[in-house]
């Protein structure tokens, strides 16, 4: 039935997620063009840097030809795109491996960090934002305000140094660096240390991996959490005097239920987009924290690639970051429609 088929296609076309996905792909393509060009117009000779100062000139020249570096930029981009559609991102000039292999090795460490950061950030935001927003002017509110300003002012790497100094070197509660304690080895399956530990059935390793994750995640979460808690708080302050919250007070519902359900959910609508952006930007912003905690993540790999002018490495890392950024944003959009039915049903105009 062609007509049904057509209407089905129309439905897909109309769906927000589909449109977002297409737009994201286009913007990723644009991103690749920009970063591809930028990486090549920056001064420095990638082939020479890869082979070292003492390599004979004809070897370097052959390497340039291998990388198509002598050809015009548009042709280089064409070759790169052709390879991309075969699933290849090119050879890294640093590791001399396929860049996708490098990324596959380093990405899980960063993603794992991002996930725990996101969890800490979301829980912290909801708890602190709701507590201070439901009792504006209280002692808790005042304390959280001070904490929030401190949190916003101090960048993540400073938190990292501070937390590492206090909780690892002084108190010794948390390990200072690395993803897992030396001596524990678990087979790599997904690259996520915690998940691999669970797959191997090694519960101690799981706890150990979490232990290593905690400080860097906390360092990354604190600043964003402070800011988001403030946003949630101001939305809460506005909502708790609204009739649609007071209604539930007037019926004698426990205060905690009223605040954490009937005031929180409408307040989250304005907070979730900010949370999403903050979490997405972790993929690139984790760099300093990864250095401090000696975390073998993507940020660390990306910076090394840039310093060594590893052309394919740079483009690969930026593209993956862009991809994760867009995926996170699509997920955020979906979550918002779940939270706010007025968006889900396309209604809501009073």
């Amino acid at each position, binding site marked *: 039935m062609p007509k049904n088929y057509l209407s089905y296609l129309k439905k897909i076309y109309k769906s927000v997620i589909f449109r977002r996905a297409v737009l994201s792909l286009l913007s990723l393509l644009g991103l690749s063009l920009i970063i591809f060009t930028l990486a090549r117009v920056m001064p420095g000779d990638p082939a020479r840097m890869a082979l070292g100062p003492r390599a004979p000139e004809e070897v370097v020249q052959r390497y340039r030809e291998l990388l198509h570096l002598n050809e015009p930029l548009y042709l280089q981009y064409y070759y790169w795109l052709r390879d991309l559609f075969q699933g290849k991102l090119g050879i890294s000039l640093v590791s001399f491996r396929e860049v996708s292999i490098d990324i596959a090795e380093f990405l899980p460490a960063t993603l794992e960090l991002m996930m725990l950061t996101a969890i800490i950030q979301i829980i912290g935001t909801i708890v602190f934002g709701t507590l201070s927003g439901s*009792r*504006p*002017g209280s002692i808790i509110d005042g304390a959280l305000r001070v904490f929030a300003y401190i949190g916003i002012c101090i960048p993540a790497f400073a938190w990292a140094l501070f937390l590492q100094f206090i909780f690892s070197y002084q108190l010794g509660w948390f390990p200072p660096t690395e993803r897992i304690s030396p001596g524990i080895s678990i087979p790599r399956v997904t690259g996520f240390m915690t998940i691999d530990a669970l797959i191997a059935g090694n519960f101690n390793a799981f706890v150990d991996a979490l232990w290593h994750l905690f400080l860097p995640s906390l360092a990354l979460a604190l600043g964003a959490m402070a800011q988001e808690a403030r946003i949630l708080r101001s939305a809460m*302050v506005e909502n*708790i*005097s*609204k*009739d*649609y*919250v*007071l*209604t*539930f*007070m*007037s*019926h*004698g*519902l*426990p205060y905690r*239920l009223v605040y954490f*359900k*009937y005031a929180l*959910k*409408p307040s989250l*609508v304005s907070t979730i987009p900010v949370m999403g952006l903050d979490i997405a930007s972790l993929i690139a912003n984790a760099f300093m924290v990864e250095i401090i905690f000696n975390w073998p993540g993507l940020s660390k790999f990306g910076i090394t690639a840039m310093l060594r002018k590893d052309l394919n490495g740079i483009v690969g890392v930026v593209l993956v970051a862009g991809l994760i950024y867009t995926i996170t944003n699509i997920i955020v959009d979906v979550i918002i429609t779940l*939270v*706010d*039915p*007025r968006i889900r*049903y396309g*209604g*809501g105009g*009073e």
Partner: protein
Amino acid sequence: MSEASTLLKVEDLYVKYRSYWYTYHVLDGVSIRIKPGEKVGLIGESGAGKTTLLKSILRILPPQGRITKGKILYKDINLLRCSKGTLLEIRRKKVGMIFQDPLAALNPVFTIKEQMVDILKYIYKGSNYKKSDLENIALELLREVMLPDPERVLNSYPFQLSGGMRQRVVIAMALASAQELLLADEPTTNLDVTIQAQILKLISNLVEKRRLSMVLVSHALGMVRSMTKRIYVMYGGNIVEEAPSSKLFNEPLHPYTQLLIENAPKIIATKLGEGIKGNPPDYRYPPPGCRFHPRCPYAMDICKKVKPLLIKVNNDRYVACHLYAEKDMIKKLEV
């Protein structure tokens, strides 16, 4: 009137709102009382403190609002002093409130079912009802407020319903809690005129059927007159007059009441009323003495200095105005 026959008694209530810069002195010594089964009206222009009074009774003022003085007695319980458990119990099972704006009283991000079941869960706490039982009670309540297709309503979000339907849902919710007293805060503002009459009729029938006491706040003076026995008139955070409904409209005593009734929109009027000159009082700096004196056509010197108290004029009429004070009283106050 003896203590025992009073259901609700508000005595000398002061409420202030604090913002960052200002303090708003809203309620300024308000006293009202309601006997069991009595229906009482509360009228006055917007911003007179009617909603604040009702919200104070249930202690659900927004956080910047504070009750600074006074007593609220529900039967023998002082709601300002009682334990949190007692207060919750009264909110759950004794007193229900219909909020002013039906478009704003339902939570936009939950279905009606979710909201009603949560409310009913605490009203019937301890009676072992399952979720399906609570849903049936909710359906029954929705039927009682004459909502067509209650199943559909129960599964809807508020924005999927019309204003009239939403107000019926709000009434159904209020009924669940109002087993003794219903506080109806302008239940018909923001609704079409035809629906206004329906809703008021519905409330009136339900209150009758369930033998509830009621405080009705409304701008529809005709409806208030027919639905209540006694009326309080509020101006600027004060009760300025109290009278049986039948007498108030025929012979208003307070200058404000006179102007209010004179200016009420009438269908057969050939021209618009003049309105009451001047503005409602600025609660940050309320006028000294009688809060109505800047707008009062009969204002005297004493009105600017001394706040008039609610005095008994004859056996069932009270008014707070120096015009009705005995002359020698005024002399005494002026000294």
